[in-house]
């Protein structure tokens, strides 16, 4: 139930900088995710919050308390590891009760708390089982119960579901969210899996190469990526490099024309661009529609392209459209996706409105 703040956190290992000037402000009871590829520094950041690693520079606060000088066992946190964390020589009860027993709580209180926790995770009756007798999913649930038993003020998750199967992952992440809501604890979750992050977070910190690229809700990040990395890492995107050749104010909004290779694209401008600015234009595959001959002249951009490489993925179909020299990936869903299936090599008309622009140096 603590507010967590990171102020100018940097971590260097010798000559390598793992985390560079990271700032975070996480509200009480909020569920945030640190999302990024391997090596982006998200786990290191999490471990610094836990106290397992000491920052090279910067300060970490829980509420108003500076926690830098405190070792992990004095920070009152709960840390759920990816794997290998349940003590193999203790049964479920002893594992869950460990945090309380090291504080010298009396046995009855511990037993009662363990029962409470087992009910919370739905594993009543498993008291005497050893960790090796539990499935992967059960182990992680026990690990969850173990950290909740001590009533920590912050919950930290280091890719807890990565070692589990897909189906288990899908189910367990909602369990985690559920427990977090019930217990109102601040949760900081690390993962590289975008769908996991999107499913359960209040806010997401997208990280890359030790820096926070963007912070925001799922909608913010998906619909309005602010850096090239975020645009490409989150979902899929067509990336076009180009230059602004014209800008205009019409109908109350600014628009620019961007010349990218042989293509000229009309985009709405939220950045205040001028002619000659270099930009990256991002077009999401699902935002490109296949137009039938008749109507649909309301799209800002309409181009013609040849259909290549159709892939039927089940609920979606994607293909590459060769528009002059550029290859645009298009994704179709719903019933209309089936109409493209026989049209390999055909020329189609495509239309799209949504283009995200990001300045390029």
């Amino acid at each position, binding site marked *: 139930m603590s507010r967590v*703040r990171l*102020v100018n956190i940097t971590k260097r290992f010798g000559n390598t900088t793992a985390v560079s000037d990271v*700032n*975070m*402000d996480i509200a009480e009871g909020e569920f945030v995710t640190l999302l990024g590829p391997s090596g982006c520094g998200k786990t290191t950041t999490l471990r610094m919050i836990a*106290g*397992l*690693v*000491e*920052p*090279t*520079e910067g*300060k970490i*606060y829980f509420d*108003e308390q*500076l926690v*830098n*000088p405190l*070792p*992990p066992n004095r920070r009152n946190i709960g840390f759920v590891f990816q794997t290998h964390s349940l003590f193999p020589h203790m049964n479920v009860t002893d594992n869950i009760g460990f945090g309380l027993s090291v504080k010298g709580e009396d046995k009855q209180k511990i037993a009662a708390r363990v029962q409470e926790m087992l009910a919370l995770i739905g594993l009543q009756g498993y008291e005497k089982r050893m960790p090796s007798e539990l499935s992967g999913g059960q182990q992680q649930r026990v690990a969850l119960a173990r950290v909740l038993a001590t009533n920590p003020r912050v919950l930290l998750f280091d890719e807890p579901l990565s070692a589990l199967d897909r189906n288990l992952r899908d189910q367990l992440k909602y369990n985690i969210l559920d427990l977090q809501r019930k217990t109102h604890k601040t949760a900081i979750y690390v993962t590289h899996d975008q769908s996991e992050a999107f499913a359960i977070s209040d806010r997401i910190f997208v990280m890359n190469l030790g820096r*926070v690229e963007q*912070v*925001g809700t799922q909608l*913010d990040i998906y619909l*309005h990526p*602010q850096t090239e990395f975020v645009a490409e890492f989150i979902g899929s995107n067509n990336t076009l490099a180009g230059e602004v050749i014209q800008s205009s104010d019409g109908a109350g909004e600014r628009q620019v024309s961007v010349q990218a290779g042989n293509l000229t694209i009309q985009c709405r401008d939220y950045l205040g661009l001028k002619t000659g600015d270099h930009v990256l234009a991002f077009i999401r595959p699902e935002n490109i529609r296949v137009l039938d001959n008749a109507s649909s002249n309301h799209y800002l951009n309409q181009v013609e392209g040849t259909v290549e490489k159709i892939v039927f993925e089940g609920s979606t179909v994607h293909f590459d459209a060769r528009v002059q020299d550029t290859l645009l990936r298009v994704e179709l869903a719903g019933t209309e996706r089936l109409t493209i299936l026989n049209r390999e090599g055909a020329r189609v008309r495509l239309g799209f409105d949504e283009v995200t622009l990001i300045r390029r140096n």
Partner: protein
Amino acid sequence: MAEREVTATPFQIGTELPRARQSVFSTRTTTLALLLPALGVTVVFLLLPLAFLIFISLTKGRTFFSATTTFTLENYASIFTQFLPNLQESLLLALLATGVDLIFGFPFAYILIRKVRYRDWVRAFMIFPMFGALYLAFGMYFILLPNGMFAPFIQALNKNGIQIPIYGLQSVVFAMSIFTFPFMVMNIGAALSNVDPKLEEAARCLGAKNWQTFTRVILPLASPGILAGILMCFGWNVGAFAEPLLLGSVAEQRAMALTLYNRGIVLFDYGTSATMGVVLMVIAFSVTYFSLRYSRGALVE
């Protein structure tokens, strides 16, 4: 969309960040404190006595403990004059025992690694020599004595004119080689088991005969282990004590370890005996140093 603003709230005085360290747990002092007991024991009970020996080897006779300590290099000279036979004897015994170990140990290791499945039983038997050269030497008596185990067998040999003397070079070397046999086997065995059998198969597929595969594929790949085994056995055998003492004739009793004991503990000639200790130490160290360079078994990344 702008990131939420973060302002550091000024609050309690005196909670400044401590000096940045590598990680919360590995401080210099903690590491040192953890290593100190082992290092302390090593320094006090190993390095100090060894240094002490070197120091005393430079003194004359028993003058170290007396009021008038005389320093001299005579002791080292005497190793190569007066005590040269002793040095030679130790080296000879070690060489012979190591040779026996190599000749008998290599096939043993090869068969053990490649062909035999009851390896654990064999290992159980191989433990016995490791209990100590003392029991080996002692037990030898009972093998060779007229009223020992093999009495009828030995009497039969005697009748045919073959005498097997108890005390002598052969008994000493035999006992010594049994003691260090497991070391040879383990080193060679480790090296052999690291040779991928697929390489042998590949050689055979390419048309090599058994002998060729052996000399040109297996032997070169196992040679580091063989070398390590030779050096390790030699290092151990150079300091042989019980075997020459209990089983040796006059010639074998010249072994340097025995001479050290006699001159040092019995005659109190500290200077000479310390010198012998230093010589044995140097031989053992240099041999072992090279054996470690060639053997596997690195525990550090």
